């Protein structure tokens, strides 16, 4: 019909699980294993031993006696051990117990009458038809069958069967041997097996009791040859040796007619070894240990858990060509770059094909060897042989190199690599950077790319992956470079942008009429490619030309940029005066020239930056990246010019203000006291939908919250923009006015789960208060500021509130992580097609148009026609309505 959509891929129709029968084990076995020894004195595998050549080969050079393949090709073949006496398979203890209790001890029939059986069978069939899990019905069968005290068929009285860990079944004080259990199971008729939810063709209950043990191929349990030439066997082999030994001893003793007691002991021992062969962590069984005391890793341990076969080997992948180290900042790097330590660059390689054009260059790398930086570590001949380049053979190899070879040269400046920080929660967690090889031992990155990685420099480590093919490098540089990811598809705005000092720096630079001399101006702009300065804004009394900060910032703006927006410092007046803003909080940029306003978080901040957003969308990602590079460098120099520091004295407020705050808090406390009195006198009106207790709590919280805010206002009035904490809070660089309030004025109410602190002793939080005291200080209101210091009870309440925060974050991250994992797993195959529809792998449509509107948010101007309006305005000179 059409070839645009791939046909529905092949799917696994069904998987059938069953029990393996002794007959099947023997059928798939290539040999019985009878000796516990592995190798003879010459180091050759013994026939019918655990390393029998028919079980497959692992030593190079030998051929498998079953399939004739060599090591690596031979998949391995199973053998078997005939157990002298049956033993229980630990994994089926639960089913064995339930089955044992629901079949007759004499005639082995299911302890239900015929009609009941038929009823359950019908239920199971309908369940199967509907595709539901039959677990509930089967459990019901077991429950019903267990109730019968006498067999409905042979009228035998049924005895209570007790299960004792790990695998003993005790009936009326007498222990059932596996043989007895097996006999009972063997006699269960096929029809009854079906009622138990088993398919008698593929899972007879007696197969849960082992009479023959499959021996896994040697490829599953390879032995390692140590440096000393000694062989070290796999844990599974050790376990199998134990099983064979006991099996033999059992046989000998029984043949010799040993007393029942000894036989029983040996039987139990055999049971122990077979049990630990399957699972070495069964409760009630001491784990089998290595000579060194280390518990053996047997079958279950190989599969289970995070490092098991499923999670560790099948779902988890490990890679080569990767490096990991601590990250640290370097504002002089471009956002597209990553600083790579020499030590790492010299280990990571990029394969380069030798052609006539690069022959000489690559020869030089080879000649330099692996010990000098731009060198090479490996040469690959045209026949595919890899040769490690060393001090001794570098000259010789350099001679030999010719077209057709491949040289694995060391990582160099300009190579493209992937850079990643876990947890990789969104696509910006892995981005492509260009390498800059630097001294010292940390990865260096521009602090502006911290937000997408969510990185900081308190010891964070990051990973680097070196791309090995031309295609991957091309794809990475087109799709994954940092500059291609400045705009986040989550909200269509920049996720990369100025942080902390970048914002403070540009705020300080562009605020007010900075008077900047020529020298200072050149110093500020020296890292940007600026060749000319504009007309000076003014002249000093000496006639020296002076520029202002807005002019300096304009130099890094692209020509033709028009933009108007209120800054972060905007006071949100009732009617915005726009260009006449008296706080210089309205930014106006015309033709790439900043006319007024102050640059702050709203202009260049990560997640917000309007200027950056505009530059990205109108001038492209390259210009965007250049703009980020430029403004970060300008900002760093800007903040260094003024300097920005914060100390304990910055939290000082005048005594009058302190008194004011004290009075205010006292008044608030008095009001709270009044509320409490009203409450106790039962005069308080409950709020709609609330109890009286809730009402008083809410009112107190409100009162105290209001008080804290008011103290903040008092403190705020004393501290102006000359205070660096205020400056940082108002510009959006770091911190908030609330932080400052807590430092200088009043910490405020400590809360647990959004309520005042109530836990502690009976009727009170601490023995320092009266029982039933509802007062502010008795329930975690901290009057003090961090500067003034907290009193002991306040300190304690503060610790309670602080601990809740920590617990919350810990719980939230694990919960949201799991939620995201489930979402990603469910949605990972969805793809936007060229026709704009979202489809899954079978071609089934999920959305007819991506996001209903088919818009790529990173390319849309927040779905507003601003750009068109501006173009119309510029061409016609008239506003669009």
């Amino acid at each position, binding site marked *: 019909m059409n070839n645009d959509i791939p046909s529905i891929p092949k799917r696994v129709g069904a998987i059938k699980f069953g029990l393996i029968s002794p007959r099947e084990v023997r059928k798939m076995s290539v040999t019985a294993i009878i000796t516990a020894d592995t190798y003879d004195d010459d180091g050759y595998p013994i026939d019918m031993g655990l390393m029998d050549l028919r079980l497959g080969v692992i030593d190079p050079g030998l051929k498998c006696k079953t399939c004739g393949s060599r090591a690596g090709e031979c998949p391995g073949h199973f053998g078997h051990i005939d157990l002298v006496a049956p033993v229980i398979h630990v994994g089926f203890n639960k089913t064995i117990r339930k089955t044992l209790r629901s079949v007759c001890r004499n005639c082995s029939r299911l302890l239900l009458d015929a009609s009941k059986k038929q009823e359950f069978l019908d239920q199971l069939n309908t369940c199967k038809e509907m595709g539901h899990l039959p677990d509930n019905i089967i459990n019901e069968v077991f429950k019903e069958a267990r109730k019968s005290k006498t067999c409905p068929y042979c009228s035998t009285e049924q005895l209570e069967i007790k299960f004792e860990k790990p695998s003993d079944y005790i009936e009326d004080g007498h222990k059932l041997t596996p043989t007895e259990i097996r006999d009972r199971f063997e006699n269960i008729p096929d029809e009854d097996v079906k009622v138990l939810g088993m398919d008698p063709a593929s899972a007879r209950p007696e197969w849960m009791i082992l009479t023959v043990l499959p021996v896994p191929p040697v490829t599953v349990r390879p032995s390692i040859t140590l440096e000393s030439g000694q062989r070290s066997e796999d844990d599974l082999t050790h376990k199998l040796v134990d099983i064979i030994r006991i099996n033999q001893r059992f046989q000998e003793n029984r043949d010799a007619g040993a007393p029942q007691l000894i036989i029983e002991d040996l039987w139990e021992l055999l049971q122990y070894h077979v049990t630990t062969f399957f699972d070495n962590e069964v409760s009630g069984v001491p784990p089998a240990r290595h000579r060194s005391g280390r518990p053996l890793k047997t079958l279950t341990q190989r599969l289970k858990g995070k490092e098991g076969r499923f999670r560790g080997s099948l779902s988890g992948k490990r890679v080569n060509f990767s490096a990991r180290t601590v990250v640290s900042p370097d504002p002089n790097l471009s956002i597209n770059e990553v600083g790579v330590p020499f030590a790492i660059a010299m280990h990571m390689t990029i394969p380069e094909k030798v052609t006539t054009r690069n022959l000489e260059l690559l020869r030089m790398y080879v000649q330099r060897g692996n010990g000098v930086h731009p060198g090479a570590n490996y040469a690959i001949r045209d026949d595919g042989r890899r040769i490690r380049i060393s001090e001794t053979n570098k000259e010789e190899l350099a001679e030999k190199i010719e077209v057709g070879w491949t040289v694995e040269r060391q990582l160099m400046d300009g190579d493209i690599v992937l850079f990643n920080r876990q947890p990789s929660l969104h696509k910006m967690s892995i981005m492509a950077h260009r390498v800059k090889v630097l001294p010292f031992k940390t990865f260096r990155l521009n602090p502006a790319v911290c937000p997408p990685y969510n990185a900081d420099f308190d010891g964070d480590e990051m990973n680097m992956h070196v791309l090995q093919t031309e295609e991957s490098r091309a794809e990475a540089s087109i799709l994954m470079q940092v500059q291609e990811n400045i705009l986040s598809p989550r909200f269509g705005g920049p996720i990369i942008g100025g942080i902390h000092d970048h914002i403070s720096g540009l705020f300080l630079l562009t605020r007010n009429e900075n008077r900047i001399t020529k020298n200072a101006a050149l110093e500020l702009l020296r890292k940007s490619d600026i060749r000319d300065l504009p007309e000076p804004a003014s002249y000093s009394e000496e006639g020296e030309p002076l520029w202002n900060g807005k002019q300096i910032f304009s130099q890094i703006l692209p020509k033709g940029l028009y933009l108007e927006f209120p800054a972060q410092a905007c006071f949100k007046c009732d009617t915005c005066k726009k260009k006449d803003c008296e706080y210089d909080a309205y930014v106006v940029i015309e033709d790439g020239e900043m006319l007024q306003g102050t640059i702050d978080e709203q202009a260049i901040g990560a997640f917000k930056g309007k200027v950056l957003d505009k530059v990205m969308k109108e001038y492209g990602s390259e210009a965007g990246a250049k703009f980020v590079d430029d403004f970060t460098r300008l900002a760093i120099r800007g903040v260094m010019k003024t300097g920005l520091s914060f100390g304990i004295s910055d939290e000082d407020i005048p005594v009058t203000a302190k008194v004011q705050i004290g009075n205010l808090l006292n008044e608030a406390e008095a009001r709270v006291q009044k509320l409490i009195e009203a409450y106790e006198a039962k005069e308080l009106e409950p709020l709609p939908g609330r109890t009286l207790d809730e009402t008083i709590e809410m009112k107190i919280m409100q009162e105290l919250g209001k008080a804290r805010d008011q103290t903040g206002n008092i403190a705020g009035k004393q501290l102006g923009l000359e205070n660096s904490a205020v400056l940082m809070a108002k510009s959006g660089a770091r911190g908030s006015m609330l932080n400052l309030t807590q430092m200088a004025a009043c910490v405020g109410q400590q809360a647990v789960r959004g309520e005042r602190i109530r836990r502690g002793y009976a009727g009170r939080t601490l023995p320092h208060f009266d029982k039933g005291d509802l007062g502010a200080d008795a329930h975690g209101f901290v009057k003090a500021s961090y500067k003034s210091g907290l009193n002991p009870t306040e300190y304690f309440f503060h610790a309670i509130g602080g601990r809740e925060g920590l617990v919350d974050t810990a719980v939230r991250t694990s919960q949201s992580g799991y939620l995201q994992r489930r979402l990603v797993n469910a949605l990972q195959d969805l793809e936007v097609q060229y026709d704009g529809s979202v*489809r899954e792998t*079978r071609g*089934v449509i999920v959305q*007819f148009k991506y996001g209903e509107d088919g818009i790529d948010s990173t390319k849309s101007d927040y779905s507003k026609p601003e750009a068109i309006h501006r173009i119309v305005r510029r061409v016609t000179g008239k506003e669009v309505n």
Partner: protein
Amino acid sequence: MRKFSLLDHQLIPKHEIMLEDELKSVLKQYAIEKEQLPKIKVVDPVIQEIGAQVGDVVKITRISQTADEAFYYRLVIA
């Protein structure tokens, strides 16, 4: 007796049974078979309300914040 129509509720978008030729053009537009459409069960209250049968395709007209009106097509299944 139900005294109101589900479709009158503001949260329920407009559902209508598609005509044969309109359906054809939609399937052609996306180059798909009917089975590749999203599904909806006949027992769904809104499907019962409009009386669609298994095998019918319903056209849903949703009010979208970003695209004003967005169309969605679902195949009614058992």
